[in-house]
């Protein structure tokens, strides 16, 4: 009897192994192959320190390393891990960060990478020489000095503790360049590639493609898995979808629309894997504080109270790249607003009838008549601006407002905002890492992005307090206060829905995880192609 049970058990194990083995084998990274991906934008220059488009990151990042990076297996994209840094320590006053660099790291020309190169790169980012542009210099205002006690140690000393400092060092823009080259010509990296990354540069044919091949001397032994990658520059979204559908491209890393996803899944079935994530991009509504009646916070509050965000979340996500109802941080990330706190904010309540009744009352109190008309300026970009704009106008109609939409051409939109030539306007924010310091600095009174011209010292103080908080609990407390003031008490601006990132890709692509940022996880060292 026992033998029979043993035999049956062994048989069952055998069957399970037979079924599971191929899948297990598929989950083990395999070397070889060429990853082909579509890029909807092209790099204006190759120097990430001065650029802001993913059109640089997607084709160029695989040639470089950064000091830190975000953990490629972390779906929130908020956990810093070492890239060129092997380890680090933080002083008890949180003002000194000491990084130990990996040894044996070589540039593609065979020279050693040392702390001198990291320092030179950060010097260029933080204090660029005259005539050299650095887009993110302001993010490192807290840095007092950068020291290199030895070839494999670099020390950042801060003037004050800064909660976001580690994630700032994991910025995907902060490629580490070679110090000698920078010393000779700080513009050299605008047109040339020389990094320590997993792929060597092969060619860039403008308007066509970018090719990289495996770095055989990469410091992370065994990686990268791919023999090469090829980025195809394809602007038209329908052509990108057609490339994935026709298996001429494995993936497009920025994102597709829900309709594109559905059509790809329908056409390719199990040949397609769909990864989705809340996106660190959001459309918000700006109201000009110098223009009546939007100088009255009751009117601004009424506009946000009119929005039925939860119903829209369910339905707009079928036609547009938006989904989650969120506060000032991407849902599911460390500093995101808990749902119970979110529901207490104006316009986030579950009872839309009560919200709209309050909105009508506020408008009446503010002397805004029924049928009051204003122009809402929207950006001339189909996704998700158009559908969200139509939804907003419909929602405002529900509280008796008659809103006319004016579409401003995408290239003219930013200058329209800067001129303050609007009563109510769409605005947008896209971050490269989900981190409050990076995401909410735009709401400071002195910010260039304060298009509505609000002046709020309380909010400015709360920003500083959260940025310099030394414990997560303290920081969360200040962030929630900041958020309440911004979105509920003063309603300087308000959020619509969080963007939603949808990446339908060829099921052969493994080792890549979607995050809330289309700038992260683009080194491609962990990516491999299944057979």
């Amino acid at each position: 009897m026992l033998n029979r049970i043993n035999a049956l058990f062994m048989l069952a194990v055998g069957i399970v192994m037979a079924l599971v083995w191929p899948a297990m084998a598929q989950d083990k990274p395999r070397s070889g192959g060429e990853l082909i991906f579509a890029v909807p934008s092209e790099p204006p220059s190759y120097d990430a320190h001065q650029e802001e488009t993913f059109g640089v990151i997607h084709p160029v990042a695989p040639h470089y390393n950064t000091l830190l990076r975000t953990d490629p297996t972390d779906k929130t994209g908020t956990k810093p891990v070492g890239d060129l840094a092997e380890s680090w320590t933080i002083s008890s006053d949180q003002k000194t960060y000491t990084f130990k660099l990996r040894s044996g790291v070589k540039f593609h020309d065979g020279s050693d990478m040392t702390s001198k190169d990291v320092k030179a790169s950060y010097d260029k980012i933080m204090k660029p020489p005259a005539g050299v542009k650095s887009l993110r210099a302001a993010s490192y205002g807290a840095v007092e000095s950068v020291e290199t006690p030895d070839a494999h140690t670099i020390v950042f000393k801060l003037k004050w503790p800064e909660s976001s400092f580690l994630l700032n060092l994991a910025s995907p823009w902060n490629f580490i360049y070679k110090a000698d080259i920078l010393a000779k010509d700080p513009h050299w990296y605008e047109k040339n590639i020389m990094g320590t990354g997993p792929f060597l540069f092969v060619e860039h044919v403008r308007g066509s493609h970018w090719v990289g091949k495996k770095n055989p001397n990469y410091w992370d032994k065994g990686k990268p898995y791919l023999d090469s990658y090829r980025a195809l520059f394809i602007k038209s979204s329908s052509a990108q979808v057609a490339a994935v559908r026709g298996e001429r491209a494995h993936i497009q890393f920025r994102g597709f629309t829900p309709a594109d996803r559905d059509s790809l899944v329908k056409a390719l079935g199990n040949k397609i894997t769909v990864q989705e994530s809340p996106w660190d991009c959001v459309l918000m509504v700006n109201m000009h504080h110098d223009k009546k009646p939007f100088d009255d916070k009751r009117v601004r509050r009424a506009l946000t109270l009119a929005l039925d965000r939860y119903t829209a979340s369910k339905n707009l996500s079928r036609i547009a790249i938006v989904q989650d109802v969120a506060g000032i941080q991407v849902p599911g990330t460390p500093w995101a607003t808990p749902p119970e706190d979110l529901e207490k904010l104006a316009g986030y309540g579950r009872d839309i009838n009560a919200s709209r009744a309050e909105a009508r009352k506020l408008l009446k109190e503010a002397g805004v008549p029924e049928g009051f008309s204003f122009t809402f300026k929207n950006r001339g970009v189909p996704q998700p601006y158009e559908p969200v704009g139509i939804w907003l106008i419909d929602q405002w109609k529900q509280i008796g407002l008659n809103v006319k939409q004016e579409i401003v051409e995408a290239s003219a939109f930013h200058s329209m905002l800067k001129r303050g030539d609007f009563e109510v306007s769409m605005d947008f924010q896209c971050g490269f890492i989900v981190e409050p310091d990076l995401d909410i600095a735009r709401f400071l009174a002195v910010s260039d992005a304060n298009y509505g011209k609000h002046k709020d010292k309380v909010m400015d103080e709360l920003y500083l307090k959260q940025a310099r908080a030394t414990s997560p609990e303290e920081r969360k407390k200040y962030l929630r206060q900041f958020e309440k003031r911004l979105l509920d008490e003063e309603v300087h601006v308000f959020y619509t829905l969080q963007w939603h990132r949808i990446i339908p890709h060829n099921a052969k692509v493994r080792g890549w995880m979607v995050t809330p940022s289309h700038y992260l996880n683009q080194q491609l060292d962990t990516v491999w192609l299944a057979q």
Partner: protein
Amino acid sequence: MSELVVGLEVPSRGSRLRAACGDFIRRRPLGAIGAAVILLMFAAALTAPLISPYDPVQVHFAAMLAPPSAEHWLGTDSFGRDVLSRLIYGSQTALIVGFGASLLGATIGALIGVASAYFGGRIDLLLQRFMDVLLSFPLIILALALVAILGNSIPNLIVAIMIPMVPRCALVIRSSALSIREMPYVDAARAAGFTHSRIILRHMLPNVMATYLVMLTAFLGQAILLEASLSFLGLGVQEPLPAWGLMLRGAAVEFAETAPWMAIFPGVAISLAVFAFNLFGDSLRDALDPRLRTQ
């Protein structure tokens, strides 16, 4: 005697119009079909609030992308808005922009054409060269450029579509007016000391009316098509206003496979309207052209 009086009775204006209409229908059945479609469009535009089953701008998420059914005869769009209601209201936009642009374009063109022919000489030369400059731009490119400069409100759209029509009308009207200029009654008016404006407006313009009407109807179809094209390109009427060209863009393209009704019905409406105006315009030209009147 009384029998003779009855025999000479002049028919009333109503019965003359009825007879003319009957004659037009018999002789030009295609034009009559065009006229019927145009009348239907007018009726739909005028009675839109009465005949539209739903509010054309109201979002109904529960009915998103619904196929044609008893509830929504032509289905719904990606916001659950009734396609039929948006088509009906869209006819208002098409007619306002179409009529506004072609009426203005043809009238200004006619005035310039007649004045150019009447004055002749340097004025004629200058006006015609200016018309040549305008004519050197393709219709859609000029309209696109004007909308980009002026902005995309309905009045600006009318102006942008109207301007490229002016030189086309001016050239045709000028050629008709050139022969009228030499007529004895124009000479008589000059000799009687009438002002230039009186001669142009009272004596010359009424005599190019047939050409003007033909140009007007021909422009109507073009203007509707141009408005739809500009709206499709995102430079015309803006959401949530219902307009046929606008209904063809965005989600209608994205959901062309799963919800084809979003694109088919506005497309049919545009084609039908343009076809109707062209048919009617052609027949009107035939009816008003003395050389073709007997055919």
